[in-house]
């Protein structure tokens, strides 16, 4: 499957006629034939297309995604640099979505129409319908610029330097370096982008939880559970919620993969140096190795997440296991 995607990308790139040479050596240096020749040889631009593809796939198998025309670094290094920022934000967004979305969904599902339900419903509508490029600017304007309670854009206080990279997750790396101030600053800077990026997923989780709970609560096994004299809490948590988990896991899996690949707007507004920004820049500069590397990575993440979701099904639902 990944091979298919790589071939597709390669074909597209060669249909769009581009000359990467200008981009590699720069405008002015094109006048110097020595520099141009050195670049053509170094980047293998004089070889036939099929040979370029073959080299590319062989390298892929060895875990070598090639070199970005734009950053001149190996694409693997670039991805290692940009992916963690996105992963960190995706994890906190997913945490936010589940920790807020599921409880609110349960409450709303148990007592549909109550004040709390209506409040939660409106909140989810708001978060799901506001585009991040707008809501991101608004929350920055209100909470950072006017009230001064939230930090500004970026991953850290502007006066701090990034912790030495181990995992690339600033919160973890700062802790590993024993720098609690940097860790606190990193957590602090995650707040606003998390709410903005996780808002849509939170709304989704809330709605699915609520709808499934309402549906489950009408089923006969709930009546049985109640008639056994179980507390309402045990009925909801031990019985109803278990069945709600299946649709939830499906959504969360897809949402996590989506958060990794689709955070471009949030990343731009919050100056978040993540994968989305990297890929947008690569695309607008026709930086083919970077586009292909990033796309393959996202495809691989989708496949991995789907596999994980399938395994989770088996754990959550014994019926799936039997087949």
């Amino acid at each position, binding site marked *: 499957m990944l091979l298919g995607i790589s071939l597709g990308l390669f074909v597209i790139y060669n249909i769009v006629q581009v000359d990467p040479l200008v981009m590699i050596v720069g405008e002015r240096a094109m006048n*110097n034939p020595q520099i141009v020749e050195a670049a053509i040889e170094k980047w293998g631009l004089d070889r036939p297309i099929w040979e370029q593809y073959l080299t590319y796939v062989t390298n892929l198998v060895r875990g070598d995604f090639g070199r970005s025309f734009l*950053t*001149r670094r190996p694409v693997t290094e670039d991805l290692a640099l*940009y992916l963690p920022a996105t992963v960190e934000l995706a994890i906190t967004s997913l945490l936010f979505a589940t920790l807020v979305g599921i409880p609110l969904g349960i409450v709303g599902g148990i007592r549909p129409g109550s004040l709390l339900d209506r409040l939660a419903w409106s909140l989810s509508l708001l978060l799901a319908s506001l585009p991040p490029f707008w809501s991101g600017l608004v929350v920055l304007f209100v909470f950072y610029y006017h009230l001064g309670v939230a930090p500004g854009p970026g991953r850290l206080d*502007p006066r701090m330097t990034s912790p030495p990279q181990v995992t690339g997750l600033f919160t973890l790396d700062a802790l590993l370096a024993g720098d609690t101030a940097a860790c606190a600053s990193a957590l602090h800077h995650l707040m606003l982008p998390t709410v903005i990026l996780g808002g849509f997923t939170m709304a989704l989780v809330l709605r699915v939880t609520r709808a499934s709970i309402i549906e489950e609560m009408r089923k006969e096994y709930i009546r049985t559970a109640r008639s056994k004299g179980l507390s309402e809490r045990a009925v909801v948590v031990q019985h109803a919620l278990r069945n709600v988990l299946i649709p939830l896991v499906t959504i969360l899996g897809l949402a996590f993969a989506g958060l990794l690949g689709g955070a471009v707007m949030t990343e731009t507004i919050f100056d978040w140096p993540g994968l989305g920004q*990297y890929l947008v820049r690569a695309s*607008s500069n026709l930086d083919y190795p970077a586009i292909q590397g990033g796309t393959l990575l996202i495809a691989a993440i989708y496949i991995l997440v789907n596999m994980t979701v399938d395994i989770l099904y088996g754990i959550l639902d014994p019926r799936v296991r039997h087949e």
Partner: protein
Amino acid sequence: MKKFSALLVILLVATIITGPACAQEEDVLIFATGTDDLITLDPGWAYESTNLTIHHAAYDTLLNVSTDDLSKIVPNIAKGYEMSEDGLVYTFTLREGLEFASGNPITAEDVRFSWTRLINLKGNPSFYADPIAAIEVVDDLTVEVTLKEPFPAFPAVTTTPAMSILDSAVVIEHGGTDAEDAAETDTAKDWLDQNSAGSGPFILTGWVPNAEVTLVRNDNYWGKPPAFARVIIRDVNDANTALQQLERGDIDITDFTDPDLIAQILANPDLEVAIGQSLNLNYLAMSPAPSPGAEGSEPWIAPLWEKKVRQAIAYSIDYTGILDGLLQGYADRPAAMLPLGVQGSDPSARYERDVEKAKALLAEAGYPDGFGGLVLSIGTGAPGGVPNETIAAKIVADLAEVGIQVTVEQQPTSNFLTAYRAQELQFLFAGWTPDYLDATMWSDYFSYPDAGPAYRIQLDSETIADLATQAAFETDPDTRTELYTQYQNAHVDEAVFVPVIQAQSVYAMRTEITGFAYNPVYFIDFYSITRAGE
């Protein structure tokens, strides 16, 4: 599980309320800019824009360009230089007793090593050293450079950050070499991306791509100690949020502004604006040839090969509308491809809009009702924050008023440049950014039928080429200025290249920041900046 999530929520809420409780003792200067152009910070490989500012802070060049008078070269780590009578040999004498940040003495050998490495890396900035034929160390403080042919702009070329002097011992220790096969065997780049090996007022200590570049004070600096203990260059990519950070005092200076935001900056008593006159030109080019350069290609429809038609187009453009209307007055323009501030540039000769004259010229050329079929090619880009397509739309409207019908064709810049380079474009809007400040930076490229944009647009004028050569090799400054003015006027008459915008850079900063001075090569000099009240 529930307890865990409750704990997490409490933790998160606590950090929101308290925020980072860290206060920095030392004084840090924060400069916010777009750093996504950075590819490497090795002076031998880097050929972008932001790196120039960083290299100027961390490294020294032999000579400098005077910030007050761009045509004046002043001493730096070299006391001065002497040129042989035939103009081929330059002898530089270093100041005595200077040291690199590492404590190693700065010697003539370091000069030889740095420039030889630059040549042998065969990287993008290696062409700066093209004029050099040989470098010879005479003694510890004297170095003799022989050129391939006389090149009066050479002292100006040595001021560009790519020609910085590196600490050869440190570079060699980290895998650097000046050997002929340095392009393959030099491995110092990875180290030089994160560290510097220079003698400038600051030392590079780290670069996180698309996030930050950190510089710390060089305690070993040979001049007076820099005011700031640290300088952080922070990446921004939204002008609105950059301004918010500036207003809140999270950053000190930014060049990431929009013409639309300047009124807001000026209205804030804590902020001020400084204008830097860049030497970047955005120009219209009109091919004097009847068809694209490739043999057997179809002739163009629009008659730009008529000089009078080109002049008519130059008279039709509403320059004031573009500069004051679209760029809000934050730009200027010279008469020809010699920017304001460069030797010989004289704006009094420039084209001004005159619709009647344009129509008369069209009539004389045999097109009293104008013509159609003209394509204006543009790449992506936004000089002075205004997108190319907006400027192109204005040009289309201006030309329609004299009866010339134009369609716009926009492509990604790399494709646009490829077509331009292949002589396929008849009418286009493009830009030119200098690497050093001598007039040859323009006249070498916009004059000869076999070089640079002049080749691409098929300009073949003996007058222009002759004047360019005479001026380039003239050693008497006054005669040289006079020759460049003649050269400029020949360009105005030919009307092949018509500059439209000489952009200005707008810097917004906190009022307590003093000593800011814009330089068109390295833009901002952290060393000259101080914070008032300290």
